[in-house]
């Protein structure tokens, strides 16, 4: 059977199609990274403040999010909603799962950041009359943030790439779009190169900004 006729060459308009898909990858990643980071910081603070009790409760839940492969979480969660009578779009389901996945990863980082600030330094700020929250805001946050910024950047870059897995739900982000185009044009090399360039363009600001902050924060 000759099916060559259904294949068409890569066209300029396909670039627009990919750009739109890149926009979706960007959207879902920005949502997951921003909300997930805020949640993760709160979780990290709870873990650090409650120690053993936190490890035994919240810590276990977060470990589940961190250890079950994201693709399994996505499929389970997406199929869970119809069971309880809701229908959610792949975008909503994917975003929610990605937010919790990110928050679990960030929680570990944030906890490390808080624990990186020595008890002695915190005693010093409290001895000046700072409240618990002032110590957290003016000492623990900036000192801890500097300590874990590279780890956070690693999480953010990872989530950006992992967002490709949301394609299993049928959400047409970069990876899914590239598969569609590859099937049509039979030009995997060209398309994957273009898609790789898109991913790089999306990651570049994260690595660039964090690297710059790290340099600025070298305490001298």
């Amino acid at each position, binding site marked *: 059977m000759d099916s060559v006729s259904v294949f068409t060459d890569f066209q300029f308009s396909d670039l627009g199609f990919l750009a739109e898909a890149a926009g979706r990858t960007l959207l879902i990643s920005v949502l997951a990274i921003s909300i997930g980071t805020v949640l993760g910081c709160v979780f990290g603070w709870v873990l650090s403040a409650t120690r053993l009790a936190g490890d035994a409760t919240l810590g276990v839940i977060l470990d589940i999010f961190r250890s079950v492969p994201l693709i399994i979480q996505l499929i389970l969660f997406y199929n869970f909603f119809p069971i309880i009578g809701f229908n959610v779009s792949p975008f909503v389901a994917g975003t929610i799962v990605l937010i919790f996945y990110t928050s679990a990863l960030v929680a570990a980082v944030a906890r490390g950041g808080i624990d990186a600030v020595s008890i*002695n330094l915190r005693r*010093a*700020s409290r*001895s*000046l*009359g*700072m409240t618990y929250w002032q110590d957290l805001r003016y000492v623990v946050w900036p000192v801890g943030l500097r300590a874990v910024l590279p780890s956070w950047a690693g999480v953010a870059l990872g989530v950006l790439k992992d967002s490709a897995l949301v394609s299993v739900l049928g959400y047409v982000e970069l990876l899914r779009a590239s598969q569609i185009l590859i099937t049509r044009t039979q030009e995997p090399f060209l398309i994957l190169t273009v898609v790789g360039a898109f991913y790089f363009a999306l990651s570049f600001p994260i690595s660039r900004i964090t690297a710059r902050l790290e340099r600025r924060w070298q305490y*001298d």
Partner: protein
Amino acid sequence: MIEIEGVRKSFGKLEVLKGIDLAVDKGEVISIIGASGSGKSTMLYCINALEPIDSGRIVVDGVDVHAGDTDVNKLRRNIGMVFQQWNSFPHLTTLENVALAPRIVLGKSRQESTEIARKQLDHVGLADKFDVYPSRMSGGQQQRLAIARALAMEPSYMLFDEVTSALDPELVGEVLDTLRLLSEEGMTMLVVTHEIGFARDVSDRVAYFHEGVIEELGPPAQVIENSTSEQTRRFLANVR
């Protein structure tokens, strides 16, 4: 004045303070000496409520430090503390290190708190280091920064916990000189120290801690030069 009455404190099974009584008058300098583990640091932490006590009372200017309704954050403004580790805020310049608490705790304006910071840094001899980050300074300079940072709150009392112990020997002098200066200015000070010479020269009274009790308390001429306690003599023979 600081009144410590029958203070006891344990960490788990280990009783660290076994009934401490001590009254510190305004303007007085008391040096606290004693072996490692005798409870000296713990005593200081109890005075500004960084550690809770099990029984007894600590009253500072009429305020019961460990009473349930005491605002410890407010109390601590009046009790400066400097630690063995200088604990500079690493992300702030020296000026910002000192200006932070006056601004956020006392609510002073940015300009006013910077002015206070300038004055206090000048006071401890760091006038040429305003815009330097702590990591660029020696231990002695960072310790003087910590002193300036505490003084910026204009406390009535200063607690010093072995502030020279982590310093290279050649840097000890500059920090002790700063302490001397404060005592001459009339600051009320509790100084935990292993510098027996300093304790003898500067303090009004010396307290010798031994296993959670004050074994001996009196003027340096008595405790350091003419101790009647076998324990104190043995300790002094070892540290000298």
